[in-house]
Every structure is written in structure tokens, then in C-alpha cells.
């Protein structure tokens, strides 16, 4: 009986979590007329017209391409820079190591929202407002602290005997990193890259402040633009656009669920 009650509660919660997404999916196949006449009704005939509209009128295809460029560009730079710094500050003794470490991870505990004004001034002075490069560099700068912190947890866990034996073999510090540590770190780098991809793909704040021309818009800001512009009352097309926007990260989640949850639990401590 107790077990039954528990099952009912879990089922209700699961329905509550799924319902808004399921409603959006069903709505994306309806017409606006059907939506207003019967919000809970099913579509009379299945067409992909709304999805076509979201892509052609809503420019979701351009936005996806922009987001892909920005996300991949950012995670490439992060994946090169972060493990290197994480390894150096975890496993190499050098002067000012403590200071450098603190400078590298402090950003994890600072809200980027606070510095929006000076950040826009900086990008303006660099001539990078409304460019993908400006967006990429900002994402790299603000995501590196978490990536480094996450990678440090991995490098610290590597037994020092491995490092010692490599040193006996006469490997330089760079060779040791490149040939031994980096290959070992690849799975951790993949975890970081996936989490960063989801975060940057979904980011609204920086894109909203730094981008001006619709042709440069990334997915979230393009989505908002679509729903507030000429198609502001075309809810069924907006539903389709929402689903398209969520597809890449949901697919990533279905494939890498465990990896993502593990990494995000770690990251959330600085949310």
C-alpha cells in the first residue's frame, strides 16, 4: 500500500515534468485555430508546416548554424587551454602557483551578470560587438574557470608514481603532459566539452547583450526574436521553433545522460 502510494506520487511528478514538453510537441502539429478552439485537442491532420515556417520565416536554420559555430569554436579553445592550465597548476611546482590558481578559478564564483556593462565596453573597444569572435572569446573567458576546476579534480587524482616514472625516462614537462597526461585526460575533457556545449548552446545572456544583427543571432536569442516579432501570435509555429531549438541538447542528454548529470552536479556548486 505504501509502495503503491509512492508509485502514484512518482507518476504524478513525472507527468508534471513531461506535460509541458508533450503539450508543446502536440501543439507544434496543430493550426492556431485548433489551438484556440481546443487547447487540449489533438491535431486533425499531421503536417510539418509549422516546422517549415520556423525554419524559413523564423531563420532557425541560420541560428542553428551560428550556434554551432559559436559553441564548437568555444569548446575547442576551452578543450585546448583548460587541461593544460589544470595540469600545470595541479602537478607542476612553480613560483606564484597559488596566486595563479586562484586567478584562474575565481571567475567560477563571479556572476557575469554583474559586469555586463564593462564587458560590452571592452568588446566595443576591441571592435568585437556583434561578432561571433567576440561571443566566442567571452564564452571561453567565462567558462574556463569551471573547466579548469573540473580538470584539476581529475589531474589531482592521477597517482604520482606515473609522473615519477615518466620523469626517470627523461621526458620534459611538456612531453609528459602531451604524451602521457593528455591521453589519460581525454574522457574528462569530453565530459567538460559536452557540458560546455549545452551551456553555450543554451546561453541567452551574452548573445542578448553582444549581438545586434539577426543574421548573427544564436538559437535562444533568435527564438525570442521570432516570438516577439511579426509571428508573435503564431503560437503553433513558435512551438515548432522551441522544439527545434531544444533538439540538439536533448539528443546529447539522451546519449550522455550519466556523464552530463555527474558533471553538472559538480558545476552546480557555482551556479
Amino acid at each position, binding site marked *: 500500500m505504501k509502495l503503491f502510494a509512492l*508509485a502514484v506520487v*512518482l507518476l504524478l*511528478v*513525472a507527468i508534471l*515534468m*513531461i506535460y*509541458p*514538453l508533450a*503539450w*508543446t510537441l502536440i501543439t507544434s502539429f496543430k493550426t492556431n485555430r485548433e489551438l*484556440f478552439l481546443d487547447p487540449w485537442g489533438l491535431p486533425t491532420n499531421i503536417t510539418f508546416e509549422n516546422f517549415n515556417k520556423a525554419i524559413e520565416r523564423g531563420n532557425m536554420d541560420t541560428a542553428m548554424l551560428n550556434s554551432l559555430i559559436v559553441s564548437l569554436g568555444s569548446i575547442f579553445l576551452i578543450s585546448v*587551454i583548460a587541461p*593544460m*592550465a589544470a595540469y*600545470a597548476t595541479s602537478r607542476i611546482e*612553480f613560483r*606564484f602557483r597559488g596566486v*595563479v590558481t586562484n*586567478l584562474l578559478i*575565481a571567475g567560477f*564564483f*563571479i*556572476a557575469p*551578470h*554583474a*559586469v*555586463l556593462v*564593462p*564587458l*560590452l565596453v*571592452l568588446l566595443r573597444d576591441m571592435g568585437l560587438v556583434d561578432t561571433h569572435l567576440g561571443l566566442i*572569446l*567571452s564564452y*571561453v*573567458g567565462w567558462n574556463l*574557470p569551471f573547466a579548469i576546476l573540473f580538470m584539476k579534480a581529475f589531474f*589531482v587524482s592521477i597517482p604520482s608514481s606515473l609522473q615519477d616514472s615518466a620523469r626517470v625516462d*627523461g621526458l*620534459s*614537462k*611538456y*612531453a609528459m603532459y602531451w*604524451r*602521457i597526461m593528455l591521453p589519460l585526460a581525454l574522457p574528462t575533457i569530453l565530459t567538460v566539452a559536452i557540458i560546455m556545449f549545452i551551456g553555450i548552446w543554451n546561453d*541567452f545572456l551574452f548573445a542578448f547583450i553582444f549581438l545586434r544583427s539577426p543574421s548573427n543571432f544564436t538559437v*535562444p536569442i533568435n*527564438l525570442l526574436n521570432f516570438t516577439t516579432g511579426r509571428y508573435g501570435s503564431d503560437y503553433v509555429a513558435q512551438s515548432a521553433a*522551441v522544439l527545434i531549438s*531544444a533538439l540538439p*541538447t*536533448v539528443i546529447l542528454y539522451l546519449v550522455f*545522460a550519466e556523464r*552530463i*548529470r555527474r558533471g*553538472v*552536479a559538480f558545476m*552546480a*556548486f*557555482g*551556479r
Partner: protein
Amino acid sequence: MPRRGFYHLSRSSLREKQKQSATNFSAAKGLGRFLDSQAGLLMSLPALIFALIFIFYPLVQMFYLSLFRWTFVSPTMVFVGLENYTRMFFNDAVYLRSLLNVVLLAAQSSAIQIPIGIAFATIILRNRRVGGLFWAIIFLPYVISSVAVSLIWTWMYNPYFGSVNIFLNAVGLGFLARPWLGDVNTALIAIFGTVNWIYIGLTTTMTIATLRSIPPSIFESARVDGLSGFQEFRKITLPLLKELITVLVIIDIAGAFKFFDLIWVMTQGGPSDSTHVTTTWLYRAAFRASEPGYGAAIGVTIFVISFVVVQLLIKFMRSRLTR
């Protein structure tokens, strides 16, 4: 084993390199020695440059910019001293309201998400198979962009076709139906509902991560001692969760100062500026009302307040993060 083969390969190529370097000048050797001795700093350098340019330079400049009246389009900057700050605390009701909203947001997140998150985590860990599926479902909203989630929930609350009102009518609670986001009395509550819907999976996941760090032998010995499920929870799990609860509360406070997307997309701070949080008010001031100096000053207060909160977080987390 592939790694072993890889290792041998690197050793032989290393011998070749040593042979080559014997013919090089000693100056090159000196450079090599220098590079090797500075390896730690040099490998940290790219990340350090990014941190200095994109985090610390804007951070310092924010304090300077907050002392002026200026706009993004005009080069003239009028020094006004601390005027922006006095205005904020003595002459800007919406700013003070936004601080209150941040406190409310943090308080309700802690009060609702933490107990439910702990309950879910315990259930998931006790029933692996069904629990796994349940876990996957409640975490799903977190991987969808906040803009998409905000739009979906704006439709849920829509007065004409929104499911919330239709549901209330269907179960005989029609008198509660209203334009949730357009009503000053309910807009903030409606937003909080969406916030909990997004973050409950995250809170649960963090709790599970903490519980998993407890060695299972403790639970086994508890079962041998004949503790019931509830006793087990109270005697073993709860004390271990105390630290986690402290950390989660601090995270909820720090997180409330980083809140922006949801509120901007769902209400833009309205109706009647009742749902502004500090970040949305900063955005309005700096980029809509064209007073970036004032926006920078608001940024300073966000930074200072969350800095204090985060110091507490670091104090609690130090052992876990840098181990």
C-alpha cells in the same frame, strides 16, 4: 595494451630527439632548460590571459564606470561620485524591490527544492530501475535552454489557451483561474513555479552525488542492526546531508543573483515592475534606459553581495573542490 605501445613509441622518438639535440647549439639548450623550468607558468598563461582580459579587467573597470554619468554612444563622461549609489538605495524603489525579489527567490528555492530534492534522491537510490528513469525525466528541463522553457511556461500560463487555467476549471477550482503572469499578485509566484520545475532535477542530482559518496557499508550495517527505512534516513542520511543543505542554501542565494533569462522572457520585470530581479533591473537601466553608469553601480552591488555569499560557499566547499 595500447597505452604501453604508445609509451614505447614515445621513448624511441625521444632517443632520436636527444641525438638531434646533441648537434644543436648550447644556446638552444639553454632556451630549452628555461622553457622547462617555466613550464608551469607557461602552460597556465593562455588561461591566465583570458581571465585577466575578460574577467578581471571588466571587474575593476566596473567600479570606475559606476562613478560617472555617460552613454554608450557619446564620448563624454560626467563624474558624479557616489550619486549612482545614493540614488540606488534612497531613490529607486524598483531596485529595492528587486533585492526583495532575489531574497524571495532564494528563500522559496531552498524551502521547496531542498526537501523535495532530498526525498527524490532517497527514493531514486532505493529503487534503482524505476528510479533511474524517474531521475532522467526530472533532470530533462535542465538541458533545455531557459528561453525555450520560459516560452513553454508562458503558454502554460496563457489566459486563453493555457493549461493551468483549463486544469483549474476542469477540477472545479475555476475561481482561481487568472492571467497568471499579467497579475501583480501572482506573476512572481508563477515564475517561482517554473523555477522549481527546472531546478528540482538539479537539486536531486546534487543530493544523489553527495549520498553516493557515503560508503554503502554504513547502510548495510544499519540494516543488520534492524533500522527501518525512516530510522536509517534520520540516523545516517540526514546528518550527512546537513553539510549539503548548507551548501545548497548558499548556492540558492548566489544563484538568485545570477537570475535573468526566465524573468526577462516571461515578464520583462512586469507587471508594474513587480517581478524585477537585480540583474533584469541592471539590464533595463544600462541598455534600455541608456544609463550604463547606473547599471555598472548595480553590478557593483551584485558583485559585492554575491562575493560575500560565495566566500561562505568556498569556506564550506574548499575541502571538496581542491582535494
